[in-house]
């Protein structure tokens, strides 16, 4: 088996949004929508501040509520890496998954189906990194298989402090942020 994950180094990230633009061109995401975005989290009072910039997207959860709630089976887990995908032809655009996703990762594509990050599975199948990972000028994003202890993502998680988003939601997210 394989479990795909992204490990993102918030120390290196400059929040430039190249990941957002690259996703839009690679996947032809329609104007007005994005599958990934940058979150800016500030703590403290000027001038003693902590800023975390995070490239965020669908967490490809191991326990995905969007799949559980889908009435048609359109939202599903792909056998390759456990990637969470939507079958456009099965999707009826009911938005149950939009409501179920605690990360607000989904939107309804103008063509009527729920859309979101696919981990660029069409690239991954060909041995490439997802577009966002491959363009990042800060080299802050890493993609790989957590079931392989020798993978770069496994090694990074073993050696660095990290967190994931909303662990309390019980979704078992697969995007990790190095801090």
């Amino acid at each position: 088996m394989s479990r795909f994950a992204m490990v993102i180094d918030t120390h290196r990230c400059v929040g430039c949004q190249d990941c957002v633009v690259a996703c839009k061109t690679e996947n032809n995401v329609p104007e007005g929508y994005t599958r990934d975005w940058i979150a800016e989290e500030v703590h403290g009072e000027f001038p003693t501040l902590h800023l975390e910039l995070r490239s965020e997207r669908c967490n490809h959860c191991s326990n995905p509520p969007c799949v559980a709630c889908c009435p048609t089976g359109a939202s599903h887990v792909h056998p390759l890496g456990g990637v969470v995908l939507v079958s456009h032809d099965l999707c009826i655009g009911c938005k149950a998954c939009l409501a179920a996703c605690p990360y607000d990762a989904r939107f309804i594509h103008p063509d009527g189906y729920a859309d979101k990050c696919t981990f660029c599975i069409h690239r991954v199948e060909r041995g490439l990194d997802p577009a966002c990972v491959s363009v990042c000028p800060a080299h802050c994003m890493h993609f790989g298989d957590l079931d392989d202890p020798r993978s770069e993502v496994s090694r990074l998680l073993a050696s660095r402090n990290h967190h994931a988003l909303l662990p309390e939601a019980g979704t078992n997210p697969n995007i990790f942020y190095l801090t």
Partner: protein
Amino acid sequence: MRTDSGNPVSRRSFLKISAATIAAGAAAGSALHAVYETPREKGIRRVPTYCDLCFWKCGAIATVRDGRLWKIEGNPLDPLSRGRLCPRGTGGVGAHFDPDRLRTPLLRASERGREVWRPVSWEEALDFLASKMRAIQTNYGPESMAAFVHGIGGTFLKHTLKAYGAVNIAAPSFAQCRGPRDTAFRLTFGDDVGSPERTDIENAQCLVLIGSHLGENMHNTQVQEFANAVGRGASIIVADPRFSVAASKAKFYLPVKPGTDLALLLAWMNVIVSEKLYDKEYVGKYGFGFEQFAASVVPYTPEWAYPETGIEPETIRATAREMARYRPATLVHPGRHSNWYGDDTQRERAIALLNALLGSWGRKGGFYIPSSMDVPGYPYPAVPKPSRPALRAMSNKFPFANEDISTSVREATITGQPYPIKGWMVYATNLINSLPNQDETIRAIRQLDLLVVVDVIPSEIAGWADVVLPESVYLERHDEMNPELFKQPFIALRQPVVPAPDNQKPNWWIARRLAEKLGLGAYYPWKTIDEYLEHRLTAGGYSYEQLKKQGIIRGKQPPIYFDDGAPAQFDTPSKKIEFYSTQLAQAGFDPVPKYTRPDPGPPGYYRLLFGRAPVHSFSRTQTNPLLSDVMSENSLWLNAREAQKLDLKSGDYVRLRNQDGKLSNPIKLKATERIRPDCVFMVHGFGHTSKALRSAYGKGASDAGLITRYKNDPLMGGTGMNVNFVTIEKGA
């Protein structure tokens, strides 16, 4: 920063479900339907070229799918991009698809500034232009035709203009951007830091950034090296009134009072000299006038600097010691846009001198010595000798300017002195937004017999033009090649990826055809651009075929550090690093920088600061549909407690009124802890007033509209622009 802007338009997603091929063992039933169509290699074409979304000129590879431009990625062979573009470069696709781009030549059909034009053929437009230029030549002399240019694309137009007899060709990138820095480093080391800057961030162990927002300012190679420096734990010191992205990576963040950076720099030097922390061997070997310099910084103690800068003396000492600890691998970054307060060359000279004390010029982790590959220029016939010199040569007002000063050309246009300027050619720079004080620019335009704009979009300056010539975007044209001066020397080629969609033409074609119309065809011995490029490359001993295929040809890298044998040469009068500048003393300026307190502005006002965002370049990318989708308007950064006092919250729209009563467009407030309470900040380039820029018109506010005042740098004529103050008015 999650974007929720823009109107969704129906564009068919390319991700389509196709027949299942990897379905065996599917975990979920519907996985059978889940195999996504991978882009077929059939129908895919990749073309190497170099980017034009900014002046960095990264090597790129564009992918065309079924005849349609799909994406642009970095060229792994390119030493600048190292295979990764910045967000603008990645979004370069949008420059081709920009719905608002210029499509056909236009002649003005109403009064200037009304944006009323008549579409015409290239022949009609160029005939008209040539007749106007001939009239200026006859009535005033060719020197009265001036030009403003930005970027490498201006090469051929400049050649035509010089053949015609023009001598005043200014780049706003000098007097409105990098000029103070380049002048200061030339005065100190005899050479400037260049573009791309010769900063060895990759190897710096201590990096000092003064208002230089790496990461928000996406100078690609520098950002990559900066992230590497952060990744390997380099010590980073940031002085900035704003808690920039760079500040968030810093070991020391110094929230310096705006306009007092020079005080901080002098105090740092005071500590390094008085504690004898400088590189004595380096200073002894290469320095000139160190004694006078050392005496001159004695009064500038950290205690003196504290009330000026707001930075505690202990912090000043600790950071100075930190710099000394890592020298010579301590890089005090000179920044790029350096026209801030009018004393900018002296501030930049202090940066140069601090680097000199640390021994970082010519050293690993400091400033390397760049080189380029030898590609001879095209053997053009000599251009005519001008009968009158350039304006810059006729005035001693700014003695250390070594390039034409855009604002001086503007002034001469208004006054007619020392001779009239009657024509402007403007290439790829939006003068209305790039020069300070828009009223002065418009007053100058009213004096002109001819304003011609060559550009890809109908910018504000195009709105004032008599002739607008639509250039094809970089993805649709050849351009001058780029034998870059860099750490690793290389040559880059720009070549068309897709055809221009309408009646746009490449600048080389426009320049050559205009020369023919002016009877200057003999200055263009080459017929096609291929012939020109091949001629130059062959003369240098390189293969055009190879360059076309790879986009990049790399050369051998000579030693780049003094310690490895790079020549330690300083092209200054003393042939040394000038701690004390006799040139400056002789011209009546401070030979060692001195501090003067900046004007604090009227009470109750905030100082207006402006800067960059990673997804836009100047005021030239706001109609790019990909980039505007990510950032469609700018926002006003205001300290959270100040916002509370004004009863404002993030997301409220406000207007700014400056000290001269100028009112801005509505702009969205960002109430944030990330800025001092005495200033506000916005990203430059928004608040477009050109109606022809339909998708950007009126979105956000324009800093340029509020920059009515500027302070001239007495050394080189730069226009310090952070000298404007605003109040905030509620409501749209």
